[in-house]
């Protein structure tokens, strides 16, 4: 397919998927410009592919709003490194996708531009915060998309939507051009209709970037060789990820995978990650603390929306701009983060959270050092929930990250693949690997993908 045909075809699909409210910006002109650009670069791994971009990754052609009023209409003067790498690999940028405002949320209900619908059930959420990208991939509009993870914002919507989502090791993909949220946690991550699609996009955007001091000084990810089975691997099953109140469908789906893992020649070993219970509390201290600082720049002085405020002085400018520009969840996190670092409380909150984070890192290190190659668990405690179900209770919403936040805190790679359905809703199974262990994780995921029917009911 020529790039021009691809652009036209993508436009048609985007129009058809409009009811999902999954996009924040796209245009036929932009797609044509992308196509022209794609014709001018040598064929690459993404040639013939349109890639959707979460709207917290900056682009010059389309605006970048982060799903926030405060950046309404904002257009970046530069492209994110990941965007440049997609184009260099032959891909075209399809659209900017809807998200929870500044990636804060687990349902894509926190966008200032309306919630995203689950492609299989419009009354349900697609997960979040990268819900727009997940919905577009699940609806077949694009084969792959960029999202970003801070606490699970790709794996969780991938699980909800029945697609693959890969979060790489921290520093594997440059953060240059990713709107900072929780900087020590943020990872550009990928969705794919298949493991291969998500992995191909990840490989294309990976690799060292001198513009990001936390980018790892390693060569781009190389996709692993095909393997027929899981022979020789030790797969750890962490007891803490199978609590008593785990959704029955999720449990059944994961049990089916564990049985299949043994059949495929791997050794299944029960393991413990005892500090898992500290992950969500620690995450919801570290992340707001960093977010409060990262979001301080949206002050109405230099760019974005400006509200003068009734008093007309600079404090009124800040109050009005930030008070009106940010939605409730963003304001909540800024307040929590400011409190967690304030004089007299920093040791108690931020300090303790960092200590808990070290324990979580040590938990994973101990399991992998004991000879476990990969860890398998559910991605989420439940399948996709209904819109509005958790919006009144932030803590319930935060607990949606319970199985995904630990890998973010530890900076290690993890991915979700569809492992079946429960009452028609997709279930996600999660593989977690040691630092920089993406290749063996992807190789194992391909084997499981081939061996498991993701459309089959598990109960």
């Amino acid at each position, binding site marked *: 397919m020529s790039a021009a045909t691809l652009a036209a075809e993508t436009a048609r699909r985007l129009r058809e998927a409009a009811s999902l409210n999954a996009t924040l910006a796209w245009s036929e002109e932009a797609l044509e410009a992308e196509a022209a650009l794609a014709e001018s670069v040598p064929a690459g791994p993404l040639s013939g592919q349109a890639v959707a971009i979460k709207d917290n*990754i*900056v682009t010059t052609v389309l605006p*970048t709003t*982060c799903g926030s009023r405060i*950046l309404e209409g*904002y257009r*970046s*003067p*530069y492209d*994110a490194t990941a965007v440049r790498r997609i184009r260099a690999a032959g891909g075209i940028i399809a659209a900017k996708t809807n998200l929870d405002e500044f990636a804060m949320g687990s349902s894509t209900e926190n966008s200032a531009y309306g919630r995203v619908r689950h492609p299989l059930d419009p009354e349900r959420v697609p997960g979040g915060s990268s819900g727009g990208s997940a919905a577009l991939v699940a609806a077949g509009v694009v084969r792959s998309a960029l999202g970003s993870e801070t606490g699970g914002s790709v794996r969780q919507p991938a699980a909800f939507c029945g697609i693959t989502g890969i979060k790489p090791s921290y520093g594997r993909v440059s*953060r*240059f*051009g*990713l*709107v*900072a949220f*929780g*900087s*020590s946690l943020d990872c550009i991550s990928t969705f794919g209709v298949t493991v291969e699609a998500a992995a191909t996009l990840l490989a294309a955007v990976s690799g060292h970037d*001198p*513009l*990001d*001091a*936390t980018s790892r000084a390693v060569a781009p990810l190389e996709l692993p060789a095909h393997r027929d089975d899981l022979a020789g691997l030790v797969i750890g099953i962490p007891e803490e990820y199978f609590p008593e109140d785990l959704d029955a469908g999720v449990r059944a789906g994961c049990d089916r995978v564990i049985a299949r893992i043994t059949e495929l020649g791997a050794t299944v070993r029960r393991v413990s990650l005892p500090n898992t219970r500290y992950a969500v509390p620690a995450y919801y201290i570290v992340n707001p*603390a*960093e977010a*409060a*600082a990262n*979001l*301080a*720049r*949206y*002050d109405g*002085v*230099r*760019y974005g929306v400006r509200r003068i405020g009734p008093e007309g002085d*600079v404090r009124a400018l*800040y109050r009005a701009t930030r008070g009106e520009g940010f939605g409730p969840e963003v304001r909540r996190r800024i307040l929590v983060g*400011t409190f967690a*670092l*304030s*004089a007299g409380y*920093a040791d108690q909150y*931020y300090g303790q959270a960092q200590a808990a984070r070290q324990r979580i890192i040590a938990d994973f290190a101990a399991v992998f050092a004991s000879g476990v190659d990969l860890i398998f668990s559910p991605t989420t405690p439940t399948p996709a929930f209904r819109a509005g179900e958790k919006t009144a209770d932030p803590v319930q919403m935060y607990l949606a990250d319970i199985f995904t936040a630990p890998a973010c805190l530890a900076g290690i790679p993890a991915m979700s693949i569809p492992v079946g359905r429960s009452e028609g809703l997709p279930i996600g199974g999660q593989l977690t690997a040691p630092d920089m262990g993406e290749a063996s994780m992807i190789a194992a995921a391909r084997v499981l993908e081939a061996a498991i029917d993701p459309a089959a009911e598990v109960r």
Partner: protein
Amino acid sequence: MRWETVVGLEVHVQLATRTKMFCGCPATYGEAPNTVVCPVCLGLTGALPVLNAEAIRLGTVGALALGCTVHPVSVFARKNYFYPDLPKGYQISQFDKPLATGGAFEVVSPERGPITVSITRLHLEEDAGKSLHDRIPGHTAVDLNRAGTPLAEIVSGPDLRSPAEARAYLVTLRQLLVYAGVSECSMEKGSLRVDANLSVRRPGEPLGVKTEVKNMNSFANVERALEAERARQIGLLESGERVTQVTLTFNAATGEVKPLRSKEDAHDYRYFPDPDLPPLVLESAWITSTRAALPELPAARRNRYATAMGLPDYDVGVLTAEPAVAAYFEATVAAGVEPKTAANWVMGEVLSGWNDTGVFAVSPERLAQVVAMVESGTVSLQAAKRIYGELVTADADPAALATRLGLVQVRDEDALAGWVDEVVSAHPDEVARFRAGEAKLIGFFVGQVMKRSGGKADPKAIQPILKERLAP
């Protein structure tokens, strides 16, 4: 002495890097507002800081020059506060793990003689932009050209005991940093800024409540501001009031200090390690080699001028005050001029020009040629100074210049004898008095011959001829 003054200074110097601290923008001064900026130093969304290695090197050089211990691991932290000229809403600085701590150097106090002033810490940070309150009436304008330029903050211990001592400390600190090539240290351009902490106490008592004074644009004004603040605090205490912890601003026009904000308004900066920047790790071998590569510092140079060159203390002080002047002096010596002669020239003609223009108009090699013409008797010292003055305007060959200006001394015996004879016959009375024993009149005759020769006669060559003609 009823009150003892205690002063500690926080000095910010701009590191002399070519580019800013976390981006590739030039670290220049005086450009049109908001023209030397990029996504990183504008704090645009998605942009990330990358550390400038030269800023680290200069910070390390500065720390070593001040006798500090440079730490193998230091951490950049975010200092959070809102201000329109602070693009990210936080400043990248260092907090609990600074680059260097524990330095000290000697300062000559005008009251106490040589004292040792301790350096508590030296840390690195980025500068903010500038808020311009006079550019657009009724509005504040923001210029972000300066945002992101690298600074070292140098904090002294509470070791200074008077405003004059604080000034002496600043002069010495500045000299050290300029010598080490760390910073231009120009208060005028804002590349050196001073915040001063002052308290007073009865001798022997614990430290009193301190206040901070800001907005001083010269070393002299630091001294004036501290004098004003000392007087204010003593006045309060002597009238039975208490000193409260405030930040004050100095008004150079009135010489007064005025409270800016009290401690109750103080910011909670909520420092935490900047997750965008991994801890700064410096190899001990690199620190060692950086120390070994330090240029000669002022104390060592003063010592060398006094002992190896035998220069008097006054000359040593003048010549070493500015490294550029010392370098010129040394180049002049290297070009063959005897040190004391070179010192006289540099402190005289050379410095008066440099003080006015900031440039050395005549090269040390040219100056050496001029001095050599004096030494050989080709021109008089007076003529040499005139030649130097001509060279300031336009470079030329000094010998050719001397000829063109008719400044070459006449040593031809016939010519000299002719002028002597004219003088002798024109002044019969003085000749008679000389012959009668009034020996000091020889000076009068030399002067007359010089006058008659239009200054060209070599005074040393005149004397034997005069004595012969005047012999009774």
